[in-house]
């Protein structure tokens, strides 16, 4: 019943996003879409995914899109032509994709290959082999450690891409001006600033809990990293970019992002040196179970570091580009008024 309600709402919101001309409303709806998907994942008992979706889909990505909208304007360009050829291509591609899924086992069917040998193995043996109660974490961090390594590298690459495209060399002098504006805004946002100051330590604490409790309950490096980053982003939004940059050194954050990937890879190298396969944690310690625990703890830590710092770097660069643009516009206005 709740599945049907949630799915219907998802479809309605998706159609509303397509029909919406106002981009601001579309972004807000996208945030609601993320939140609904998160509740849908909770209803399907995939709490680990729901965590990430709630933080990224409803929180950080919405914010990034909002920052972009303040730079580009919030109205959709009117389309002059009817894109029938594009519709044709989309329909054919969609039809082919659906045709491709016909070979796959029916959704939820019990005799699909994955339910015959992979899943039972994880469910039955992971407790003896890995020794941690959360099967999701043992699959993600130990059985499929190499895939997860790939994911972390993808996130790291995304961070590098944003840095390459958007990073702005900032000048020292306009920092003081921004600070003056910040001081004048201090009266304006008093309530929300005080409340968020009270809440941010608890968000950090919760992120650390999710990080280190990932072996026993829902959570892990990805979730913890995103929650950690969202606390820092909340601070940046309320206290201004230059203040946040004083608190959190961006160069340091970039180094942390690289160190996370390095830590993950080094665990693999160490297990190679000790005579096992790449990312085979059994050889990390004399007792295989202890080795598994140690390996999972270390690589989750690496994942958390990389995810959190890449998120912070992406947000800093988006917001920095916006501040740069506004500063430039102000200068232009001054010049034109002087003329």
């Amino acid at each position: 019943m709740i599945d049907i309600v949630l799915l219907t709402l998802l479809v309605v919101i998706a159609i509303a996003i397509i029909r919406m001309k106002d981009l601001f409303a579309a972004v807000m709806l996208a945030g609601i879409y993320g939140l609904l998907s998160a509740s849908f994942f909770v209803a399907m008992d995939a709490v680990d995914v729901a965590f990430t979706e709630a933080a990224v889909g409803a929180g950080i990505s919405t914010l990034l899109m909002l920052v972009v909208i303040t730079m580009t304007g919030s109205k959709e360009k009117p389309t002059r032509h009817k894109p029938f050829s594009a519709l044709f291509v989309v329909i054919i591609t969609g039809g082919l994709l659906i045709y491709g899924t016909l070979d796959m086992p029916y959704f939820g069917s019990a005799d699909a290959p994955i339910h015959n040998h992979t899943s039972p193995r994880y469910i039955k043996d992971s407790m003896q082999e890995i020794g941690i109660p959360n099967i999701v974490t043992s699959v993600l961090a130990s059985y499929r450690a190499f895939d997860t390594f790939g994911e972390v590298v993808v996130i790291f690459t995304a961070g590098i891409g944003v840095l390459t495209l958007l990073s702005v060399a900032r000048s020292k002098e306009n920092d003081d001006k921004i600070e003056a504006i910040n001081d004048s805004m201090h009266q304006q946002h008093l309530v929300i600033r005080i409340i968020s100051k009270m809440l941010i330590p608890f968000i950090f604490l919760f992120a650390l809990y999710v990080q280190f409790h990932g072996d026993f309950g829902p959570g892990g490096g990805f979730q913890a990293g995103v929650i950690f980053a969202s606390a820092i982003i909340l601070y940046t939004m309320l206290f201004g970019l230059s203040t946040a940059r004083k608190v959190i050194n961006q160069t340091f954050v970039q180094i942390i992002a690289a160190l996370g990937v390095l830590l993950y890879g080094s665990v693999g190298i160490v297990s190679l040196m000790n005579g096992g396969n790449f990312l085979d944690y059994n050889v990390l310690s004399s007792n295989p179970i202890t080795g598994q625990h140690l390996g999972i703890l270390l690589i989750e830590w690496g994942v958390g570091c990389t995810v959190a710092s890449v998120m912070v770097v992406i947000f800093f660069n988006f917001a920095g580009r916006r501040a740069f643009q506004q500063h430039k516009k102000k200068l232009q206005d001054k010049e034109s008024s002087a003329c």
Partner: protein
Amino acid sequence: MDIVITICSGFLLLVGSFLCISGGIGLLRFPDFYTRMHAVGVTDTLGAGMILVGLMILSTDLLVFAKLVMVLLLTLLIGPTTSHVLAKAAFHNGLLPKDSNNLSQAKEKENTSSIL
């Protein structure tokens, strides 16, 4: 003792649910943004808070009780703050309450009459 606990928690749960439902109706039926937000604020803070307190009285486990206290503190902090921020943003962007039109007109009349 048991019956007192049951009656207390039942009463709190009922009032909380009533407030939540009335908040939902208010969201649909109230005339303008601010009154609607007021209705939602009631749902967020008082309705949810009363339901949580009712559940707290019922809970026998200390861990459950502690978790409920944390959720209550969180809603008490966040609910009013979000309402405040929303209202402030709306007012800042020039959205006036619906009846303030008459108000401002009345003020203008006063001003003009005083000038005259």
